[in-house]
């Protein structure tokens, strides 16, 4: 409870104020007629194995666009602009993504693209840089100095993975042994390098630091190998949610009773495999909080979002998507709102002006709290929007996760960056080593 006050109240009030300000500005008070439409792109996997990171994001973006349009449009430079979204399924492949980027820009003249990132970001950035179109990735590791219009950070990866070692050390100073694993792919390797650097900076002995193949279907031997190192914490870094569930099941079955920590844990899926009491016992710490968490406050943007989502996309709703809301439903809209805020600050849709305005802003309101543009020492350019990072733990009484801490990243990073960056460089994962 004490920690909650330390990390929570410091940002909750500014968060509320910031969101009120944002929506006042977005909605405006002057009745102006909507004359133009600004097109927004959604370029992500809408089918295939990666669709879980893309498809749900359409709902959150649509809710924001509907809200803006219901108020008459986005007020930029004294004029209102309706927003319209165009989606393209890139199937998480580079060639499709480039095809989609060309279609969205050349046919629909989109000014901003919501995306997952990774290989599609690599494939599209030369074209989008030339056309000066914003590309908002979920993965900050996509940010590079030669991608001036690629922005990220609304998704807390990898900042959450860097802060979890601090969080567990703060709560359990006597624990020493940190084991970490994730799937063997570009993003997993980069994010895990940042986590390992942070764990070392926090004084953990990293006893297991390996990746598993994407083709892995049986996690029993992976978990046996991890447990052979006798870890106090098993961290799953950016392990994909489906893999997380199967790994936690194995940790339970093989008798592990230490702390479990991850970028994201789909509590409902894991509950199908292990008792909820086990998840509470092992903390099951992760990010991507639930928006119905009382921590946000009864009168909050998050609670309103849930209500609106259920009314539009929930069971029996006009656009029933036949599932419950997930963290991805609101993950993409964070950056769309940042871009909209930047356009309003700049009074223009010119991308250079928007970037300039965002970087000059002392505080950027986001749905996770007040943010700043940051990241030069991590990615070579200040294109990471950095709001506070929520950390949640699974609780048995509500069979859900609840926010325990809400941490500002920049101050923490400044005091540890030398050690962390040194480790990341040793692992060949610093931005200038990944070209």
């Amino acid at each position, binding site marked *: 409870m004490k920690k909650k006050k330390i990390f929570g109240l410091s940002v909750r009030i500014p968060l509320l104020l910031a969101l009120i300000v944002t929506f006042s500005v977005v909605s405006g008070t002057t009745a102006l007629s909507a004359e133009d439409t600004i097109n927004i792109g959604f370029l992500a996997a809408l089918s295939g194995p990666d669709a879980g990171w893309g498809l749900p994001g359409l709902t959150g973006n649509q809710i924001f666009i509907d809200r803006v349009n219901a108020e008459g449009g986005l007020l930029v430079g004294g004029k209102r602009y309706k927003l319209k979204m165009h989606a393209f399924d890139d199937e998480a492949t580079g060639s499709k993504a480039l095809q989609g980027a060309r279609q969205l820009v050349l046919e629909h003249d989109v000014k901003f693209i919501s995306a997952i990132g990774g290989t599609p970001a690599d494939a599209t950035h030369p074209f989008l840089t030339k056309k000066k179109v914003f590309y908002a990735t979920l993965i900050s590791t996509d940010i590079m100095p030669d991608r001036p219009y690629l922005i990220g950070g609304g998704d807390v990866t990898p900042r959450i993975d860097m802060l979890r070692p601090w969080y567990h050390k703060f709560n359990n100073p006597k624990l020493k042994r940190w084991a970490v694993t994730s799937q063997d792919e570009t993003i997993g390797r980069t994010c895990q390098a940042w986590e390992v650097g942070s764990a070392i900076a926090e004084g953990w002995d990293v006893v297991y630091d390996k990746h598993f193949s994407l083709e892995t279907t049986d996690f029993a031997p*992976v978990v046996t190998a991890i447990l052979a190192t006798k870890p106090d914490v098993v961290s799953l870094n950016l392990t994909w949610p489906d893999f997380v569930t199967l790994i936690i099941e194995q940790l339970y079955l093989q*008798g592990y009773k230490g702390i479990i920590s991850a970028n994201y844990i789909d509590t409902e899926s894991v509950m199908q495999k292990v008792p909820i009491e086990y998840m509470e016992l092992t903390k099951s710490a992760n990010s991507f909080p639930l928006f119905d968490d009382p921590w946000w406050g009864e009168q909050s943007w998050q609670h309103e979002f849930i209500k609106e989502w259920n009314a539009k996309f929930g069971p029996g709703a006009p656009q029933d998507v036949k599932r419950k809301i997930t963290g991805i439903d609101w993950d993409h809209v964070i950056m769309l709102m940042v871009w909209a805020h930047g356009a309003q600050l700049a009074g223009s849709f010119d991308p250079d002006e928007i970037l300039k305005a965002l970087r000059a802003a002392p505080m950027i309101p986001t749905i996770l709290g007040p943010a700043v543009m940051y990241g030069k020492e991590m990615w070579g350019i200040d294109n990471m929007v950095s709001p506070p990072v929520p950390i949640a733990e699974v609780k048995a009484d509500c069979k859900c996760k609840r926010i325990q801490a809400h941490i500002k990243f920049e101050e923490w990073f400044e005091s540890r960056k030398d050690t962390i960056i040194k480790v990341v460089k040793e692992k060949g994962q610093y931005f200038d080593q990944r070209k």
Partner: protein
Amino acid sequence: MELATFIQTIANSVVAGSIYATVAVGLALAFGVMQMANHAHGEFFMLGAYVVYVFYALGGMPFPFAVLLAIPTIAVIGLLTERLIFRPTRGNVLAGFMATAGLTWILQVAAGRIWGLAFMKKIPTPYMGAATIAGAQIGLQRVIIIPAACILLGLLWFFLYRVKLGKGLRACAQDPEAAALQGISINKMTALAMGIAGAYAGVAGALMAPIHAVTPYMGRDLLITAFIVVIVGGMASIEGAVLAAFLLGFIHTFITTIFDATSGVMVGVAFMAFILIVKPTGLMGRVKA
């Protein structure tokens, strides 16, 4: 490696071998009888898992009944595949393979459209908890796969070697023309082989639904493993497939535990290449006269 880790790894290997054997045996049977490689075998496995999702997770049917229901359901899909794809393309391995590759995508898209995409389906584990066997802890859901695999493989052996229809299947696998001259209907035998192959893939998927990430794409990685098992065992050999499944299970599990899972996959494929170099017919495959 400590003793406890070693015992746990042995137990993990036995479970992995049982899983691989159950999945691969249908593929080997279909290839043996028809000389056709079924690219959609992984999707039969996937559909078996979805039968459990629909009838057990959504419908509330007891897990064992849902598993049994997967057998006829996927057997019918196997029969349809034989009738609509393999029979018209008989004698042309590439055409059959590519046509079933198309079927793979159709089934994946259909599953996605019907049951949705996004993350894995939520299937409660029917037998939660672990059994301690010689110091190793194995999930109960995994433990039941070992006797299930033994029963399924035993039944198949009995059918192939003790039942007249099964002997007919073997005759077709050895020499289709000679079998036809003896009055054995090739069409009936290939249909039977695909029915059995579908049933085995389906029941394997159904049994593993609670321990596997159930998505429309879950069959893809299993198919690669199944092909490795069948190739290493000897393309048409059921016994070879079983032997290869357990060998691969042990190799993959030990390498994963000692080194890492990426190395485990690499060594598995390298093992296949090595076998093909030193014994091109696979461990128990025969060269046809």
